[in-house]
């Protein structure tokens, strides 16, 4: 099976194509494409994908287009290239087949956190997931447990609200005197919070969390991790830390976590979220239990 899509001569219009599954777009193999690509960094069988097209099934929803008001899956055959990510694949589909296909992306290097999708049943960052590492066909859906605005775009407002609840900024008015206003941190303390600073606000963890799905007020792994990042930072005073602990020990805070490890498993920045939540639970207990 070595058929692949031919690029359309004319630029695509903004309309949905009449043939969304691209059945009419099969064409003989493009010789140029055939020469490219070996796969080496992947688990997939090298010969399997080389010069082939890969099939992606993408979730479609658009409240403003009649036949997309009821969500459906569209299939696209995308020519495979070495190193192709899920984001590359949906971008190819958008640029060559259906310009109405909508998703967020920006940096393409796992920094901006805008392209977390639900890929083959798991929350993953589109730009950090190799097509060759996935089982085919690849199913691409918007993040679960968030309202879908259009296609792969979900409403992130609630996630951002939760992030802001924990006051994600350093609180220290007592700045050092002199020209240098920098607030120094010890190497050890930097190591301590290092992993927690890596969050890119992608929302994958929140979407994977079964508790967050059932309790809309639950702060969620990312916000708690953000609280950890500051609570453990020595540059803030003890009172500020206590204030932070009071926020996270509330009814919808750390105690909601049931240690399912779902968030830790999906975090694209490998933040040990469950570990941080557990540590804050112990900190909260220590704060309230004072026998001495």
């Amino acid at each position: 099976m070595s058929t692949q899509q031919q690029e359309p001569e004319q630029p695509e219009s903004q309309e949905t194509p009449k043939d969304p599954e691209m059945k009419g777009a099969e064409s003989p193999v493009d010789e140029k494409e055939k020469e490219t690509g070996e796969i080496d960094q992947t688990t997939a069988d090298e010969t399997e994908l080389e010069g082939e097209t890969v099939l992606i099934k993408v979730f479609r929803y658009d409240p403003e287009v009649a036949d997309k008001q009821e969500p459906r899956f569209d299939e696209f055959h995308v020519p495979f290239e070495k190193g192709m990510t899920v984001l590359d694949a949906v971008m190819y589909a958008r640029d060559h087949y259906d310009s109405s296909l909508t998703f967020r992306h920006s940096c393409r290097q796992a920094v901006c956190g805008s392209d977390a999708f639900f890929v083959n049943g798991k929350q993953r960052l589109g730009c950090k997931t190799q097509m060759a590492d996935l089982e085919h066909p690849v199913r691409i859906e918007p993040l679960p447990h968030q309202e879908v605005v259009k296609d792969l775009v979900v409403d992130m407002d609630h996630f951002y609200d939760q992030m802001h609840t924990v006051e994600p900024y350093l609180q220290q008015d007592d700045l050092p005197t002199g020209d240098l206003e920098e607030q120094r941190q010890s190497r050890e303390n930097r190591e301590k919070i290092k992993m927690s600073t890596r969050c890119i606000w992608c929302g994958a963890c929140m979407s994977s969390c079964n508790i967050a799905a059932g309790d809309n007020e639950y702060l969620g792994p990312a916000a708690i991790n953000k609280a950890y990042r500051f609570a453990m930072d020595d540059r803030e005073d003890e009172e500020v830390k206590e204030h932070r602990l009071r926020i996270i020990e509330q009814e919808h805070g750390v105690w909601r976590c049931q240690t399912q490890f779902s968030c830790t498993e999906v975090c694209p920045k490998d933040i040990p979220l469950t570990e941080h939540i557990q540590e804050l639970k112990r900190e909260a207990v220590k704060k309230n239990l004072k026998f001495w």
Partner: protein
Amino acid sequence: MSQSYNRGLIEDFGRWKEFSAGMWAWIFHKFTGWMLIGYLFTHIAVLSTAVGAASGDASLVASGDDIYTTTIQGLESLFIVRVLEVGLLAVAVFHILNGLRLLMVDLGVGLDAQDKSFYASLVLTAIITVASVPTFLDGVTL
């Protein structure tokens, strides 16, 4: 927000094949915890109705014909009760082993191996359960 689509909870139990170790551990722990509670109350109900006669006739007790003895003997002669006992052991053993795992998780010990300790609880539970079968099914016929 003009209009958006809520996909509800379809992503959860419909996708059980994709659940990870920690999720299964959670489900099994809930399930076994509530099974144990269920057993506890059944246990109290059965025994407290059976001890009614224990205060009674000393000669009945001596001959083994009091209600308590006959109730227990009657239950233990049923094959299904023996099978349920094996099930109870399995549920209790898993709950205890995974409970110890959860204590470790709460103390922040060995979090990187949390999936392995879950599989270890499962394997140990299976071994102990299988090993208990001869004892539990001793001397009962279908």
